[in-house]
């Protein structure tokens, strides 16, 4: 059996406020390579905290997080940065593109902290943009792109490093229905090509369209359902 891309064991996150907030409680979750799953739940269900923990942007209060076989608790802050640059791609609701830069350079930034030279990064960024259907938009700056195009650029940035895991946080949150569908289709295409993707969303409709749905409620997993392949 292959090593899971992501494994959470007994993971809890407590924010030390008064009274303490238990954002995530005793979560067990395994994501195998090649999966496409939705992590769905209402506001305040702990989705964001889960995303941060899965993306190694935050550490759990207790429990164990393993990314492609590496236990997060064994790694220093700087090593976690290295782990992210090598294994994890992020897609955010607000895109987070640098406004003064072309689509190409925004995507090339996905490899910025791997130490690769700009020319090599641009070459790979060109391919990634072609993959998301933006081969004709290389030199456009973020402000010249539509919302859907911006999110495609952000997705290209997340896949340019051929990461083990892509975490998408409400990727359609800022988009209209039609554009949202095309973005979900794109994610599905990328998954078919081998990318492991976790989509964090509160949109049930989108969640239902994905092969596996993990429902969160009050920081715990309420259900974990995998559809049978059609």
């Amino acid at each position: 059996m292959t090593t899971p891309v992501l494994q959470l064991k007994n993971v809890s996150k407590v924010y030390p406020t008064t009274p303490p907030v238990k954002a995530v409680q005793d979560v067990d979750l395994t994501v195998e390579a090649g999966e496409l799953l939705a992590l769905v739940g209402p506001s305040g269900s702990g989705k964001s905290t889960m995303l941060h923990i899965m993306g190694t942007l935050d550490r759990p209060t207790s429990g164990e997080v393993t990314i492609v076989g590496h236990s997060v608790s064994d790694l220093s802050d700087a090593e976690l940065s290295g782990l992210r640059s090598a294994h994890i791609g992020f897609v955010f609701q607000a895109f987070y593109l640098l406004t003064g830069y072309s689509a190409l350079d925004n995507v090339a930034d996905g490899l910025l902290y791997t130490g690769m030279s700009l020319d090599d990064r641009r070459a790979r960024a060109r391919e990634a943009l072609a993959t998301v259907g933006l081969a004709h938009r290389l030199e456009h700056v973020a402000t010249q792109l539509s919302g859907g195009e911006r999110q495609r650029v952000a997705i290209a940035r997340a896949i340019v490093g051929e990461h083990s895991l892509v975490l998408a946080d409400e990727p359609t949150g800022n988009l209209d229905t039609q554009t949202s569908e095309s973005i979900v289709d794109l994610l599905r295409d990328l998954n078919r090509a081998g990318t492991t993707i976790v989509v964090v969303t509160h949109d049930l409709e989108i969640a239902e369209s994905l092969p596996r749905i993990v429902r969160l409620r009050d920081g715990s997993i309420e259900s974990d359902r995998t559809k049978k392949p059609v």
Partner: protein
Amino acid sequence: MSNGEFRSSIHPSDLVRTATVGLRTRPMRAALSALGIMIGIGAMVAVLGLSESSKAELLDQLERLGTNLLTVEAGIGIGRGVAELPNESIEMVGRIGPVEATSFVSDVAANVYRTDLIPVSQTGAISVKATEPELLETVGGTMAAGVFLDDATVTYPAVVLGAVAAERLGIDSLVGSPMVWLGEKWFAVSGIMTTLQLHPDLDRSALVGQSTAETFLDHEGPPTVIYVRAKPEDVLAVADVIPATANPEFPDQVEVARPTDALEAAEAADDTLTALFLGLGAVALLVGGVGIANVMVISVLERRSEIGLRRALGATRRHISSQFLAESSILAGAGGLAGVVLGVGITAAWAFYRGWDTLVPLVAVIGGVVAALTIGAVAGLYPALRAARLSPTEALRS
């Protein structure tokens, strides 16, 4: 598991590229915050450049004028009223070993007018002095027109005008052989001198030959000023022995001066001003540094999501702090470079206007840029550490 397995790294050229993100997205703000540094560095470079250029000009001037000229005058004797130099003093001083040349002027009790119709009281503050042909060479003078007194004209009613005297009398050339009304007699103007930098009193004088003065103006006074050219290396020694030589009876009534000392004193006064302006430049620089720190703090607050994104992309805390530190250094460095250009420009413009050579000390140029970079680094330190301390989740929560 090996700890070195995961390491983020960034290509050095990309560090510079990321450091200019803020400058490119907000160029106006960047330019304004660099302006403070530019003004500070510009002021300091200009002050150093101007001081250096004027100093070079002074050295040049001293070289031209020679620092080996001494003037000897009668001082005020205590309890004896106005003292006089003895008549023999010229000859005595000329006998001092290292003295190369001597000359003198002697004040004549007469006034000079353009015509005999000018009221007696309108003297134009021009004094009449008796002298000898050697004076011109001894004081290093040159002629603007005509010739100085020579062995022939020294006994005739001829007069040589100093530059200011000529101007006041309205005589700017010898065309038409101008005459002046001097001591109730007509004198022919035989020459006009150029301005003497060290002897403004001669500029304001009408000079006649000693014999002329004796013959036509009933003059028999003692020398008023003796000019002494000594060997450059012995100037101070000569100055020391002159009083006792010129007036052995009352050496304390003899005043010896070196006119170039006045120029040097003026330059020393300039040094004080230079220090003052350097201080003002330093204050401008400090204010500029605070401005940059301020802009960087704001920038870090505004760019939280960019910081969060970079952390998600794999940037370490060190990468983030380096980015902001480099940004403030680039900002200040650019301001410093612009300031150096400004300072050199001001120096060149002023030097051109004054007819000096433009000289900017290399240490000012290099020091200016280094100072700016240092200030940028110091100013960026706190904002950079703040950016690095920001946790990724906090930065992404917008």
